């Protein structure tokens, strides 16, 4: 397999291999010398057509700790305004001898298109409203750790994961649903009907607009950011009304068992989709998600680039 475009590209064995190696990588973060030579001589271009400090930085650190030469290219708005097509941009960089592109783009499908134009492997670091597979992997990493701290084996089978928020515009939700479908987790999506994607009923998960009912059953609650500008789009009337129905408010958090892991891919809108009490709770996995980011991305890079060129596989 070449590159990582979608969470659907991964089977259960591959996901587990990525998470297992990520656990090893995680220990590197505690070492005095944070360096492994595995990707020495490999060149990774972080090609960000859309800003994302968090994702770009963690991919950059991941590449560097594996000794790859990591180059950041901010291509925001460059090609269209210059009259250069995205294909030209990709093929130009590809011809410089790049081993992998880590691509973030505001357009859905842009990474898949890029992969069809270049020889290098392409890793989807978020494309429009489509997918963000490494985010789903690091979410799974943090969840698995959480299950283990509860004294469980870390299996996802039968785990109930509620994903709540702006599902329509979220790339995180699509990747998470696909990944959990493979791992055996039971996903319930919660959102006002205006923020549900078309055809969500075919995704193989439950859909609800009753957060309270879902909350009582959940093992993991993942809150997604709701942008305030959605209000002007008529998706919901006010932040206050949104929080009352779909926010992890203090009242809802108080009802929650401390064994329920609280996730948020960030950046958080405190007071809208998540209360500070929930965000900073002992069972909040928000910082675990962030710290898992580098390890999971190291693991993905190693799986894709750690072997022979023709054999790079997960």
């Amino acid at each position, binding site marked *: 397999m070449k590159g990582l475009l979608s969470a659907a590209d991964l089977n259960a064995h591959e996901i587990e291999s990525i998470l297992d*190696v990520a656990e*090893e990588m995680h220990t590197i973060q505690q070492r005095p010398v944070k360096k492994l030579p595995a990707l020495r001589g490999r060149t990774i271009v972080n090609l960000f057509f859309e800003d994302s400090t968090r994702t770009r930085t963690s991919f950059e650190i991941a590449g560097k700790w594996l000794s790859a030469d990591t180059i950041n290219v901010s291509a925001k708005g460059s090609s269209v305004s210059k009259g250069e097509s995205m294909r030209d941009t990709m093929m130009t960089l590809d011809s410089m001898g790049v081993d992998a592109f880590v691509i973030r783009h505001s357009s859905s499908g842009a990474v898949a298109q890029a992969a069809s134009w270049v020889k290098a492997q392409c890793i989807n670091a978020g494309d429009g409203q489509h997918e963000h597979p490494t985010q789903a992997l690091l979410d799974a990493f943090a969840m698995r750790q959480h299950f283990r701290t509860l004294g469980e084996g870390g299996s996802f089978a039968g785990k109930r994961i509620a994903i709540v928020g702006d599902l329509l515009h979220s790339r995180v939700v699509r990747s998470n649903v696909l990944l959990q479908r493979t791992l055996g987790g039971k996903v319930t999506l919660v959102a006002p009907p205006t923020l549900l994607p078309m055809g969500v009923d075919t995704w193989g998960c439950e859909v609800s607009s009753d957060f309270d009912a879902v909350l009582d059953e959940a093992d993991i609650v993942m809150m997604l950011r709701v942008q305030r500008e959605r209000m002007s789009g008529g998706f919901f009337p006010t932040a206050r009304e949104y929080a009352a129905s779909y926010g992890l408010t203090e009242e809802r958090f108080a009802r929650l068992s401390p064994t329920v892991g609280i996730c948020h891919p960030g950046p958080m809108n405190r007071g809208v989709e998540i209360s500070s009490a929930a965000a900073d709770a002992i069972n909040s996995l928000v910082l675990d998600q962030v710290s898992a980011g580098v390890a999971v991305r190291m693991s993905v890079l190693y799986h894709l680039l750690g072997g022979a060129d023709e*054999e790079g596989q997960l």
Partner: protein
Amino acid sequence: MTDPSTHTIWGSAEISRALTRMAHEILESNGGTSGLLLLGIPTRGVPLARRLARIMADTEGGAVPVGELDITMYRDDLRNNPTRRVGRTVVPTPIDGRTVVLVDDVLYSGRTIAAAFDALRDLGRPKAVRLAVLVDRGHRELPIRADYVGKDLPTSTSEKVRVRLTELDGSDEVAVQREEAR
């Protein structure tokens, strides 16, 4: 079924005897267990390190720390093969100032041990590094030599040395396997 191309060299008793001797040699040259750290190289170096540590503890009293040092990411042939599975690295105590004994099952080209040196360097600065192997089959490609050897086993490069250990394989055995002519 017995494979006619496989020739058993050692069984459980011989392996046990060799390990006991090696443990004593380590203790002797180190002057006891003080400052020792045994790091097994996955996969079969790890149970061997544990056995050596147990023998030393039985002999001297007092536990010898044992860890695992995975060298996958330090290999110089990563790019020639499909992506390798990564093993665990567990270092129970800081290596700075310790006498680290690397433990592996078979010493062959020496490249694994060279990779292990690189891996150690990223973990800290040991006082000294020693090497213990159950079988030395020759054919070194690097200037590396074992300090403690269970058995010198002259082989040809067309042969394979297979070590089986009870912990992983259900029984103890050292065998030489002739590569079938194709």
